[in-house]
């Protein structure tokens, strides 16, 4: 049941003349432009807003900003549904639709509130204890229901329709927080000439000054600062922007909410922008958050923080109650009491301290407030909202309320237990908070991290004047640290003095116990996660004594509000249990984000196909125009197969592979890593890096080379051609190109800097095609060229430079397929033209377009090692290449390749596999096992690659098999553990086709 409207005319900074309609739980309501959803709900008399997480207790609006633990709602519907949104941070727009979550069938009657009756069984850590029997499987039965009951709002499964972008930002001084300290810090740093970024999470600048009555000195001062900052060329103001994380070396994560305050249109919009901001100096003017005091019934709707009540009145023009009790242990709540009384409420202020501050007290009483010092609120009562409190004499020594106490009717209870500086950004990378006994809170401490300073109430200053002056000092200091001079007349700065300091000290009061000193029932510490004082006591009793354990066992501080109103109180209570001081108890680690960040903002544009950029070969368009299907290999897009009408991939690649061995085929191999190696010591360098020798390689010849890692495993392979005495052209695998390049640079820059060798990546400089098949020579010779492709002029592993169809080319006679073949390289700008020239000449020679699927099948037939065998766990000998290793020179990996385990004979060795039944299909990844045994574990090895071989007439495989070479001639079982098949196969040499290499040498 809602109250009558509590909106006052003539108050606040909202636009009274601009009504805004919205719906809450299906009910249409009206607010004002400038309202948050929370202030609009309060203005409409709505007290019950949510149900708590575990016990489904009725909850109302508790705070005014990001510290709100209770008032979580789900906004919007469909793809823009946003659960778990604090109503206190949503700014009202026309057509906004919000609903309560975690309640069924309705907010008013929530069936799950029965949990509250069984709270004994649902205490902290209950899922480790209750529901654990009678059998071991019982938990899995209960878990199903508990899991369904857990959680708060429900997220949509539809794609996020909006855009997000990420931007890199740089500045000299970043000021976090646009309150009095932040504004003066920004203005003064800017006056000194620094490049300043001022970040404020709400739409308005002014911070805590906006809790004060509107239209006064404070507002005029704010307007002046803002006008200066808007004019200044060296200032950027980011409002509706949160700094959510502080990272190493002055890097910060910010999220700017660009369009969350307008009704989402049909089309996609740029919704949020994430900044990675680098600041040379950062001033945290992030203010302080008020904390409550704990007692029985302190979570009822109608209980809220005193500063929030004041802010709702003075900024949003909403009087949250008519019969108000203010319970405090410090001076600040007297302002709330006075303001609310002046607005027409009947206010009783209960001060736990024996003596009230005289000036504040006099002012309050003049406004009509009844002040009771030396008293405390012992209990709050009500069902779906607060109806009364019990006020009793307070014994400060023991923290107990003396019996009998007096019951007082009320409709609003405001709490103020003190203020905690908001310093998460300072402490997010290891800084330790320091406890200040006088302020009874954690403060920055004497030395803080390089590049940071703290100003204002975040720095323990509690009068406006102090905050402004502190901000000014820090602003000037930060600018100077960046190398700027103090501006002329820097002292002449209009500070704002509102004479609002504290007269008397705060009295630490964390919890009000009953007269026997016992904690009361339903005394909550972390409201969002329903963690009560009895949970803390339970955790301590069960031995979870460290702050880190306490947090995780009770889940205190782990909700989306990150325990902003709970953490310090919890540490104080833990200290009491442990009989230690608060600093002795320690603190849990602060981690980003300070407030929740949409995953979309973190992803920006990098989702789906945009997660990483694709690389394309120079012939991409030609492939597309000629019907190729593409596949992603790493970050390259490559032509996969060229299906004729009616062909699927299998039909296509088998045809391409079969026909190539009869005529000629061309495949795009531009993706190969290519490295230009030059210098007088180039041969020596290659000798050290490759297992085989290079000094005797004649100019104009190519050689296959294998490189090892330092641990003796095969790293990469490729063909290197000697172009001139000191100039080599190295190719490496497509996938390994980056790693090889970095490694060669590492060697030359760190260990072998005496070698005169330069390596330059040339992968993008050259387009390349591999042309192979019996008719290759005929085809290439028919193209207008000055290169003689005959066997005499260009023998196997030779190289020649010249032109083809007018294009500059380098031809290297090597083959991957085992047929007569040439790799033709041309500068990338001519790649397409080269492909066209070959295709044009090709029609007379039955030229095949070959994709990499067929290319792969051909290499399986030939038995070349490739990436699927160069796994980082195979040695030269495993791959059957031991003969390549030179013994006359030292090469990388040579020494550790001699390790016993790398030379044993039962290592997995490279072999071929041919199914006994020619119709059986070997699958890649299958396990190899003994023919007569049931397959177990990892077996004897596995299939690294397979293809249908037109030459053999069945599928064939390549594999790594324990003691493989000795098993050639015998059989093994090829076991597919996914499809549960066992295929007997002959173990053969991997070289199924032309094992002597006669074709390539033709």
């Amino acid at each position: 049941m809602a109250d009558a409207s509590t909106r006052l005319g003539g108050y606040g900074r909202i636009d009274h003349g601009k009504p805004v309609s919205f719906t809450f739980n299906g009910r249409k309501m009206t607010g004002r432009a400038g309202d948050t959803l929370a202030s609009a709900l309060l203005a409409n008399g709505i007290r019950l807003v949510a149900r708590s997480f575990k016990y489904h207790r009725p909850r109302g609006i508790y705070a005014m900003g990001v510290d709100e633990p209770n008032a979580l709602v789900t906004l919007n519907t469909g793809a823009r549904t946003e659960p778990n949104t604090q109503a206190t941070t949503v700014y009202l727009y026309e057509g906004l639709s919000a609903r309560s979550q975690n309640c069924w069938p309705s907010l008013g009657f929530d069936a799950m509130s029965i949990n509250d009756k069984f709270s004994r069984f649902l205490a902290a850590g209950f899922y480790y204890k209750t529901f654990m029997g009678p059998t071991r499987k019982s938990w899995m039965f209960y878990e199903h229901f508990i899991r369904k009951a857990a959680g708060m709002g429900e997220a949509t499964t539809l794609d996020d329709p909006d855009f997000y972008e990420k931007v890199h930002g740089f500045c000299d001084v970043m000021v976090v927080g646009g309150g009095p300290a932040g504004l003066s810090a920004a203005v003064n740093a800017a006056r000194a000439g620094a490049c300043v970024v001022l970040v404020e999470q709400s739409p308005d600048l002014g911070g805590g000054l906006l809790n004060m009555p509107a239209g006064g000195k404070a507002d005029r001062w704010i307007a002046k600062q803002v006008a200066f900052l808007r004019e200044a060329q060296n200032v950027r103001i980011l409002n509706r922007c949160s700094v959510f994380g502080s990272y190493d070396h002055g890097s910060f994560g910010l999220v700017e909410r660009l369009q969350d305050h307008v009704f989402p249109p049909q089309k996609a919009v740029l919704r949020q922008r994430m900044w990675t901001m680098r600041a040379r100096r950062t001033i945290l003017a992030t203010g302080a958050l008020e904390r409550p005091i704990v007692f029985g019934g302190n979570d009822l709707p109608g209980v809220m923080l005193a500063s929030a009540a004041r802010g709702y009145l003075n900024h949003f023009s909403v009087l949250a109650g008519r019969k108000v009790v203010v319970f405090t242990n410090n001076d600040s709540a007297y302002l709330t009491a006075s303001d609310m009384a002046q607005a027409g409420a009947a206010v009783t202020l209960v001060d736990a301290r024996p003596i009230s501050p005289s000036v504040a007290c006099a002012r309050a009483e003049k406004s009509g407030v009844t002040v009771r010092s030396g008293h405390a609120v012992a209990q709050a009562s009500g069902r779906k909202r607060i109806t009364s409190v019990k006020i009793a004499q307070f014994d400060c020594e023991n923290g107990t309320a003396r019996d009998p106490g007096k019951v007082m009717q009320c409709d609003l209870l405001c709490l103020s237990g003190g203020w905690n500086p908001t310093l998460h950004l300072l402490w997010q990378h290891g800084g330790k908070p320091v406890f200040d006994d006088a302020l009874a809170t954690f403060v920055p401490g004497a030395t803080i991290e390089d590049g940071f300073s703290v100003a204002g109430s975040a720095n323990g200053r509690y009068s406006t004047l102090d905050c402004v002056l502190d901000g000014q000092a820090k602003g000037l200091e930060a600018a100077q640290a960046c190398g700027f001079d103090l501006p002329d007349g820097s002292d002449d700065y209009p500070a704002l003095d509102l004479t609002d300091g504290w007269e008397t000290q705060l009295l630490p009061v964390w919890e009000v116990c009953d007269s026997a000193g016992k904690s009361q029932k339903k005394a909550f510490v972390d409201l969002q996660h329903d963690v009560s004082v009895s949970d803390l006591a339970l955790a301590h009793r069960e031995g979870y004594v460290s702050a880190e354990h306490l947090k995780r066992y009770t889940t205190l501080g782990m909700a989306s509000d990150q325990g902003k109103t709970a953490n310090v109180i919890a540490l104080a209570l833990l200290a009491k249990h442990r009989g230690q001081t608060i600093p002795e108890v320690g603190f849990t680690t602060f981690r980003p984000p300070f407030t929740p960040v949409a995953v979309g903002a973190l992803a920006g544009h990098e989702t789906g196909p945009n997660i990483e950029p694709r690389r394309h070969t120079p012939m991409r368009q030609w492939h597309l125009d000629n019907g190729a299907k593409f596949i992603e290999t790493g970050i390259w897009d490559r032509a996969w197969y060229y299906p004729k009408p009616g062909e699927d991939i299998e039909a296509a690649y088998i045809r391409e592979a079969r026909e190539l061995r009869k005529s000629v085929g061309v495949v795009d191999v531009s993706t190969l890593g290519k490295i230009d190696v030059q210098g007088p010591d180039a041969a020596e360098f290659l000798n050290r890096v490759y297992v085989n020798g290079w000094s005797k390689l004649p100019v104009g010849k190519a050689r296959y080379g294998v490189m090892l890692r330092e641990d003796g495993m095969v790293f990469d392979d490729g063909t290197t051609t000697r172009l001139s005495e000191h100039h080599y052209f190295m190719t490496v695998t497509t996938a390994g190109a980056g790693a090889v390049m970095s490694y060669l640079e590492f060697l030359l820059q760190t260990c072998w800097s005496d070698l005169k060798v330069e390596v330059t990546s040339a992968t993008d400089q050259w387009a390349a095609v591999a042309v192979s098949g019996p008719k290759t020579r005929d085809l290439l010779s028919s193209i207008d060229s000055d290169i003689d492709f005959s066997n005499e002029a260009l023998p196997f592993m030779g190289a020649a430079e010249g032109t083809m169809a007018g294009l500059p080319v380098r031809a290297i006679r090597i083959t991957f397929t085992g047929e007569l073949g040439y790799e033709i390289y041309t500068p990338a700008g001519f790649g397409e033209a080269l492909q066209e020239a070959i295709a044009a000449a090709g029609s007379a020679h039955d030229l095949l377009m070959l994709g990499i699927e067929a290319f792969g099948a051909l290499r399986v037939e030939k038995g070349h090692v490739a990436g699927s065998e160069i796994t980082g766990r195979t040695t030269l000998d495993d791959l059957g290449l031991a003969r390549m290793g030179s013994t006359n020179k030292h090469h990388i990996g040579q020494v550790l390749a001699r390790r016993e385990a790398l030379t044993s004979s039962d290592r997995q060795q490279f072999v071929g596999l041919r199914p006994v039944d020619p119709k059986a299909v070997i699958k890649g990844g299958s396990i190899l096992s003994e023919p007569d045994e049931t397959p177990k574990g990892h077996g004897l090895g596995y299939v690294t690659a397979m293809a249908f071989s037109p030459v053999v007439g069945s599928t064939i495989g390549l594999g790594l098999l324990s003691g493989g070479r000795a098993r050639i001639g015998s059989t093994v079982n090829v076991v597919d553990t996914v499809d549960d098949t066992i295929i007997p196969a002959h173990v053969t040499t991997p070289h199924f086709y032309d094992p002597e290499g006669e074709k390539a040498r033709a």
Partner: protein
Amino acid sequence: MRIECPCCGLRDHREFDYGGDALRQRPAHNDTDIDRWSDYVFMRRNPSGLHREFWQHIYGCRQWIVVSRDTVSHQILSVCLASGAHGAGQGLERA
């Protein structure tokens, strides 16, 4: 994280690739002792505190650098070119 590349200036970690522990002693290229190589390839001290490590400025000048960094506070104390001992050429001898 930001690293001051001696050639290019203060840059974001995105531009670099981590290159491993620079505290290790690499054996000479023609050293055949299996224990010394094993030590170099497999053993690490993994200190809590001051660490020297290789990074490569892969998206910048492609130079390998040696960074002294505190593994607890992440503070970077010094950066120099890995090839610095041999001089880097005109205008950058200091690096």
